[in-house]
């Protein structure tokens, strides 16, 4: 309830400042809503939202999959960890923009380049988080699983995954918010559609109404996914802790 109130206050402040400024550069909420409805009617809003979301999902999925595999491998194997750690540090410190531009130059202005660039931005972050989890695995449970001759599927599902789950959840949460911001940059620099592309168009036209009409629904959707998917997932994987308490 308080959140809704807080949001309403924000819109009210926006309304007041927009009225006082009386400038095209800060349109009133109603004007933005109008543009939003227009873009929604033409289908452009949904098309661009869909394109961006698809890019978010695919690059996020790739980064999570490989980041988890690399993280487990590095957490379990010291030699590999020592070998790959410098790469990880470099990748972690490479600005997102550099990776995106290099991907476009080397691979071309393609969908593949955009996806790879975004996934590469997220990958080191996932790897580091999961590696932390793999290092913290309880050797006692591994031995127990060995002694009871548990098949690998059982070990994976009931011994390994539950121990990694909090780390996977953490990587998901931080990853999603990182990926959706980076996707916009990748679109702005080299894609002919998507929210990032529309924001670029609006920027060239200095059309703040258009810019907000695309940015706000996108932000709302990402926050919705966070609240309706990521947080329930986090609660689900740690439910046994609440039982135990």
């Amino acid at each position: 309830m308080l959140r809704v109130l807080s949001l309403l206050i924000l819109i009210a402040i926006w309304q007041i400042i927009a009225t006082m400024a009386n400038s095209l550069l800060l349109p009133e909420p109603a004007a933005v809503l109008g543009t939003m409805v227009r873009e929604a009617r033409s289908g452009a809003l949904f098309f661009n939202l869909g394109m961006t979301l698809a890019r978010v999902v695919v690059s996020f999925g790739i980064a999570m999959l490989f980041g988890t595999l690399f993280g487990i491998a590095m957490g379990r194997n010291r030699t590999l960890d020592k070998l790959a750690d410098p790469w990880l540090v470099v990748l972690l410190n490479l600005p997102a923009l550099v990776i995106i531009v290099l991907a476009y130059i080397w691979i071309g202005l393609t969908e593949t380049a955009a996806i790879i660039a975004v996934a590469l931005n997220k990958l080191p972050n996932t790897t580091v988080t999961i590696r932390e989890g793999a290092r913290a695995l309880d050797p006692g449970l591994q031995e127990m699983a060995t002694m009871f001759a548990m098949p690998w599927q059982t070990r994976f599902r009931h011994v390994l995954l539950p121990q990694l789950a909090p780390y996977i959840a953490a990587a998901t949460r931080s990853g999603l918010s990182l990926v959706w911001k980076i996707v916009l940059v990748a679109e702005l620099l080299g894609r002919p559609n998507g929210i990032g592309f529309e924001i670029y168009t609006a920027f060239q036209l200095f059309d703040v109404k258009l810019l907000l009409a695309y940015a706000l629904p996108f932000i709302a959707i990402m926050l919705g996914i966070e609240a309706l998917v990521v947080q329930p997932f986090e609660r689900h994987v740690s439910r046994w802790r609440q039982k135990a308490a």
Partner: protein
Amino acid sequence: MLYNLSSDMFPAGDRKPLEIVVKRKAFRTSSGALSEVLRDVSLTIESGKVYALVGPSGSGKTTLLRIIIGLDKDFEGSIVMPQKPRIGMVFQEPRLLPWRSVFDNLRLAAPQAGDKEIVEIAADLGLSEHLKHFPGELSLGLARRVALARAFVVKPDLLVLDEPFVSLDILLAERLRDELATLVERTQVTTLLVTHGIEEAVRLADSILLLGGRPTGIMARIDIKTPRHAMTDAYAAEIQAQIGAIFAAAS
């Protein structure tokens, strides 16, 4: 409540003893030096018998068990097991999966066991009320019981117990000891029990091996002729005194 032990898998005449010989076991300390923990420990484990290894804390009992069950291969010596036994292991810590219920912990250890069997063994160990609970909801005593039940549901050929009564209060420990004695008696499972409690060893074992010295070796072996259920308090006290004297002389 009787259940089929795998003893019928190995016809009586075919069950050869397990031969365990540890010539030397050393750990490398943080400074890089070798610290020898075990020397010349050999024992023969005959089918259907209960063995107790008794020794003070830090004498290398857990180390020896880990070698016997194959978790530690870095030692000089040999472990000969003619028919690779199915081992029911009870670690010093319960080592349950915290995110699974008691029932699921048992079920995951023994996917081939029937629900009925699992429920029965749990009942034998006083766990009927707790099958739906999560390990975090259990006291240490109950968690130990779950670990014991888990070792029994796999129908072991060899039951290996690492200090199953340690840090339980005396009454709980005695009750668990008697229940364990009943279960072992009924299933006739070959058992290797590690403990630093002399009384438990006397009450449960057919053969007691006293560990001591530096590095640790077997100081003495005491065979108990009376069957478990016929053990009188007086006889138990007598053997306890005998063991106490051996330990006292050694230190």
